């Protein structure tokens, strides 16, 4: 089996890496992080121009009609540059949910505007005490209106429309489109600087997405895609942390030598390399699992297994990256800590390692 990227995917990766190397140096990223939006509208337009914002959508909806693999290429490049723009909430979560569950009319209404960059989406599912559960309970839909509260909505601060889970009167979790105008939002930076919001719905007008019924299977499927996206992003971030650490070891002089001569540090850098490589392998497994011919359950297990590996590895790599840098690695001005923050947030997004391991074990593992 060909495990490599296709030439087109490779070109996409190179194009993006070039663009981000130029347009996303750490100091400019830091300025964006401190800006009002927290990210760059200009970059967003660039992504639209490159076709990234419609990458997975059908061509009839202004998309490029590509598959999950291309999304993961974007993710890894974005992970390397620690991109701040709301690609995950708008394209990967919101867009995919509309594409998967929306009626033709909804898709035609939403997706072209996502693809051209004029519409930002977010997916609101977590509730104040739901921890990692997907089913809606405190947010309720009835008669075209939603009431309740959602928390930690990634990209929820600037999204124009929200895809929202809510329990209908029968208790079934459905998906609804809600215009952000009709809700109250408390926007904030997340721990990694990316933006999010808590959202209060007070009889907010809501339109069922698609034909109704239990939305949890489609939510699970889209979260699997988003989890694989996070895995690829984390691999990009880990690769950079390793590269920065190696570079630092070679240039930082203490006791009259570059500290790379100290064998204890060498071996720890080697262990970091091992963690990165194993993670790259599991990100590949996640990519393969997303092939259309795989069945949903096998895909779900494989992607969640990938996340376990990547969360364990990224904790190891990020902690060692800071440690081997010493004090400088703990400062906002130096990039390595930002990568550490991003992977720490990824490790707590959609599920934590304990939950993933417990559920995998209960399902009988991978075999």
């Amino acid at each position, binding site marked *: 089996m060909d495990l490599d990227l296709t030439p087109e995917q490779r070109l996409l990766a190179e194009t993006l890496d070039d663009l981000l190397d130029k347009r996303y140096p750490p100091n400019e990223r830091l300025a964006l992080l401190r800006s009002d939006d927290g990210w760059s509208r200009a970059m967003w337009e660039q992504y639209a121009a490159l076709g990234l914002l419609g990458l997975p959508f059908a061509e009839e909806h202004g998309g490029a009609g590509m598959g999950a693999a291309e999304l993961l290429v974007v993710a890894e490049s974005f992970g390397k540059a620690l991109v701040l723009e709301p690609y995950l909430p708008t394209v990967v979560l919101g867009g995919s949910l509309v594409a998967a569950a929306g009626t033709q009319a909804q898709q035609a209404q939403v997706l072209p505007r996502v693809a051209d960059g004029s519409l930002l989406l977010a997916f609101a599912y977590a509730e104040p005490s739901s921890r990692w559960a997907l089913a809606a309970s405190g947010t309720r839909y009835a008669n075209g209106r939603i009431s309740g509260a959602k928390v930690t909505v990634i990209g929820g601060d600037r999204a124009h429309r929200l895809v929202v889970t809510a329990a209908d009167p029968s208790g079934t979790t459905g998906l609804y489109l809600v215009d952000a105008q009709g809700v109250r939002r408390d926007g904030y930076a997340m721990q990694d600087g990316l933006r999010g919001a808590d959202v209060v719905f007070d009889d907010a007008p809501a339109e069922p997405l698609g034909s109704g019924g239990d939305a949890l299977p489609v939510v699970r499927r889209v979260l699997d895609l988003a989890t694989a996206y996070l895995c690829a992003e984390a691999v990009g971030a880990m690769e950079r942390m390793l590269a920065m650490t190696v570079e630092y070891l070679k240039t930082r002089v*203490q006791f009259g030598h570059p500290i790379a001569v100290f064998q204890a540090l060498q071996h720890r850098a080697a262990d970091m390399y091992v963690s990165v490589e194993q993670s790259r392998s599991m990100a590949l497994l996640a990519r393969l699992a997303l092939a259309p011919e795989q069945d949903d359950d096998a895909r779900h297990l494989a992607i969640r297994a990938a996340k376990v590996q990547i969360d364990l590895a990224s904790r190891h790599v990020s902690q060692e990256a800071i440690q081997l840098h010493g004090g400088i*690695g703990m400062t906002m001005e130096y990039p390595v800590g930002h990568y550490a923050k991003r992977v720490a947030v990824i490790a707590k997004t959609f599920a934590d390692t304990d939950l993933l391991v417990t559920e995998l074990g209960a399902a009988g593992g991978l075999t």
Partner: protein
Amino acid sequence: MDLGLDKDERAFAAELREFFTGEVPAEIRDRLARGEHATREDFVTSQRILNAHGLAVPHWPVEWGGKDWTPVQRHLWLTELTMAHVPPPLVFNTAMVGPVIATFGNQEQKERFLPATANLDIWWSQGFSEPNAGSDLASLKTTAVRDGDTFVVNGQKTWTTLGQYGDWIFCLVRTDPAAQQQRGISFLLVDMRSPGVTVRPIQLIDGGYEVNEVFFDDVQVPAENLVGELNAGWTYAKFLLGNERTSNAQIGLIKNRILRLKRLAGPLLDGEPLLRARLTTLEVQTAALEMSVLRLLAREATLPPGTPDPDSSVLKLRGSELQQQASELLVDVLGPAALAYRESGDVPDGFPPPPEGAVDAFPTYFNWRKASIYAGSNEVQRQIICKAILKF
């Protein structure tokens, strides 16, 4: 587990506990208990109350306000104080420059500085590390050139904790550029309000401003501010760093964190066996660390002051690891609620309030990555242990 204490020691600890909870304002202690940082005012208020009761500098010489306590009593003082969420007497004052002045300073310096230092009338900063002198402190480059009755100081210090509040800074400066490494370094006290001193706060990845760069640009320092002998500063620095053999374990801090973890996790633990197992293992390892502290204290009396001990490195190493583990567990307990970065727990009307810990879980995790870096990185500690066991 206070199995390592006898009846008198337990009574001593109980008395201190009563004092700390009774005399230090609950408002300050509650804030710390909630995971917030002590403000400058909190430090000052608390240290002055302690000082008024003779409890700010118990390990100083009795004539300068100290108590003739056993090492275990001193340990209990720090642990009880920490566990009562009292802001600790400023370590730069009480554990660092104070003992150096008391031991190596002249009478004028003692009279001028010690009472003010004990009462936190002077807020001291530490000027040791430099951008190119971290683990390799002896390679420091900040110079002090004698010019008549003054030294002229030029250079840069970094990682100066809470330096933004500093009144004075005690510095290691190179006074003999020709001498090798550790020789040629002196211990100098510098008024931070002197012209030419610039403090630049450094933002850390937790979002806070805890450390600073301090720049010295032709700063004039009266020669009388030299402590001890010229070019003997390395000795004093070693004395200072070797002085606290057990406080680096920060046992009170870790125990506080464990208690808080249990409180915040509550019934969650029943459904999360993996989390509970990690927490339990942390508790066990903390009990081991605490007993290691007591073991080292028990033989402390037999060691001359300032003697290094490999077990002191063990305490630093384990202490920092366990603090970091505790900080990771808090993130695990909070879960998704920890993801939003918030300055406080206040939210607009009608929004769900974040649970306790949501504000500080991640920042504490990020901030405490420092524990294995500062005060002699854990790699340096391993090197000290090796030297002792391999007898190289």
